[in-house]
């Protein structure tokens, strides 16, 4: 079913005087439309959804936000012991394995958490979606903000690892940090929008996503260096958006040669495709959400 609505919002507070009131036209059919102006007018709701998630996240926990550092700390210790010491996976250029793997893990964890939150965002906001109108895109995007806060805590641990091992981070890496974070966000939301919309109709998705995430970890060079994969197959790994992001970060911060831009473009293309398709699928489905949720 294709449906459309045309809205010309006005800011009531900004035009208190006599203004021609906005007109809301509700009808069943029409082309898809991504209304950025409307999204912007709902920015406060975006902020409050994110604020709610952050407030609620560590309520009634003794360690509070320290969990955001403790959990990756445990993971990096486990990885170092098992993959480095036991399984003898070596990091290139004599970089301590803990820093090598954590460069990947830092971004991977954000990707995994953001993908899980966006995929589930329609379900967590179910009661609101069935009772009130708002541009549904607000929910999946705001759901990732709390994961970004966790990323910041996890980043403190990253800095601590550099100090502990006495490694100097490369400047290129510092410059790349924010753009790569933004790309991770887009990759996770692109995929998450598709799964989130699909989850409204098929609750199977909520079982698929966790497996997808744990499988995808092994298809991403987090634990192992990409050089362990035969060179002619490496491009396949780059179809995974996180491969490009993590390889770029490693090259930038850990002095591992030039950033593999040509390969990176494969990942970038894949991010763009996922995002465009995710948004398209989400918008196509969003009008029927309340009927199925």
């Amino acid at each position, binding site marked *: 079913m294709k449906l459309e609505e045309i809205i010309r919002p006005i800011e009531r507070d900004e035009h208190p005087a006599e203004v021609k*009131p*906005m007109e*809301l036209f509700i*009808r069943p059919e029409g082309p898809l439309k991504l209304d950025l102006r409307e999204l912007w007018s709902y920015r406060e*709701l975006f902020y*409050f959804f994110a604020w709610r998630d952050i407030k*609620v996240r560590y309520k009634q926990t003794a360690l509070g936000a320290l969990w955001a550092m403790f959990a990756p700390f445990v993971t990096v210790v486990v990885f170092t012991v098992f993959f480095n010491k036991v399984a003898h996976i070596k990091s290139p250029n004599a970089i301590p394995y803990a820093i090598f793997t954590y460069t990947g893990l830092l971004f991977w964890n954000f990707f995994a958490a953001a993908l899980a939150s966006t995929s589930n965002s329609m379900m967590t906001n179910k009661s609101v979606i069935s*009772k009130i*109108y708002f541009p549904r895109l607000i929910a999946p995007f705001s759901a990732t903000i709390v994961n970004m806060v966790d990323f910041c805590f996890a980043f403190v641990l990253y800095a601590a690892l550099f100090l502990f091992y006495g490694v100097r981070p490369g400047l290129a890496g510092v410059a790349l940090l924010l753009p790569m974070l933004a790309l991770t966000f887009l990759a996770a939301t692109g995929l998450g929008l598709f799964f989130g919309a699909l989850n409204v109709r098929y609750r199977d998705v909520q079982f698929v996503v966790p497996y997808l995430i744990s499988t995808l970890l092994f298809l991403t060079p987090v634990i192992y260096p990409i050089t362990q994969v035969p060179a002619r197959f490496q491009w396949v790994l780059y179809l995974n958006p996180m491969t490009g992001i993590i390889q770029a970060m490693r090259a930038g911060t850990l002095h591992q040669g030039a950033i593999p831009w040509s390969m990176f473009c494969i990942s970038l293309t894949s991010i763009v495709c996922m995002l465009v398709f995710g948004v398209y699928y989400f918008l196509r489905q969003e009008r029927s959400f309340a009927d199925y949720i």
Partner: protein
Amino acid sequence: MTPIVEINGLSKAYVISHQPKAGYGSLRDDIVNILRRPLQPHITQGASRETVWALDDVSCDVQQGEIFGVIGGNGAGKSTLLKILSRITYPTKGHAILRGRVGSLLEVGTGFHPELTGRENIFLNGAILGIRKQEITRRFDEIVAFSEIERFLDTPVKFYSSGMYVRLAFAVAAHLEPDVLIVDEVLSVGDARFQKKSLGKMGDAATSGTTVLLVSHNMASIESLCTRAMFLEHGQLVEIGPTTKIIEKYLSIASTAASQNLAERTDRQGDGRLRFTSAGLRSGERGQYSDVAQCGQDLEFVAAFTSDSGLKHVNASMAVYTAAGQCLMVLDSEMAGISLGSAPRHGRFSCRIERLPLAPGQYFLNLFCTANGEIVDWVQNAVTFHVEAGDFFGTGKLPSSSHGGLLVPQEWSCDDDDSSGARPSDVTSG
């Protein structure tokens, strides 16, 4: 004048699939079907699909400043209409134009988070309803005062009583100032005093130029608030007109349904393993069913039924409603601590009461029956009956019809506090 709300042939269809195993359409089924017949629209195997028109070609115009009521029985399409106008769901056919900022209140406390405090929820709920943060900050004290929960403002709402929760939620909603306000049944929650306060607030809204679309089962609030109303039945528009006229029509249709043969009624819910066939009042041991009783009479409410054999753990309920749709009393076997056991193939439930405590007037009886906790039959407005004036109090007096409702045996006294030695503080509260 251009109407502020223009509804034009609005229709909404839901496709209901009767699957052998009810539940969500699973991804597997759909994938299998798409693969099997890639070029045809996919229909889940073994499922028959039925299109139900929840709303069928409804049109009307509402002018600015009107409080417009929408009434109708369960499943009449009232909520679907409001959901479409609130843009939660979309119409299948037709269109609607709303000229102005729309605020909708289909539930009080939408998006309240139990872990957040009252203060935090005011802001969150406000944002969800579309009130700007700046506006909430400005009117914060007013909202808190309206809610009467000052002392618990910094307590997580999960610790609130349900009354406090509703008051806080309504306080936020009451400060929503849209051009068109869409309200569904939210006035039916909260205690009577708070309901009255909320009604007053809505009356204010209309005088300030806000247009209100109101759905309620409470005919009294529709009658006191609305100037015009619309009557929906089975998704179709029956009539639009002045409120009193529409309410009359609604009640007369409800009693027409009640006069129909109960066994043949199709507007019932439940799995049908038991079906009520007739119901009425009976006084005396071998008396006939009747639809007339007298205040203060000892009598039995009787409901006859047919049922499948082997229906166990049966629980029956009868509820008495006023003509205005307000529930006055419930007779329930489980509540009374009576186990009815298994239902016979043909039988009747009887509930005996002493001194019928109903004031003169017309009443409806709802019948409800469960077996092992599952609803087997549920008929609303199953029968109608009249209560005639009777000497309930033994004084020949009865409350005037406007004070209607319930009659309660009562004892009075007037004591002289000086001679009985009571301390003056005992009586200062009056």
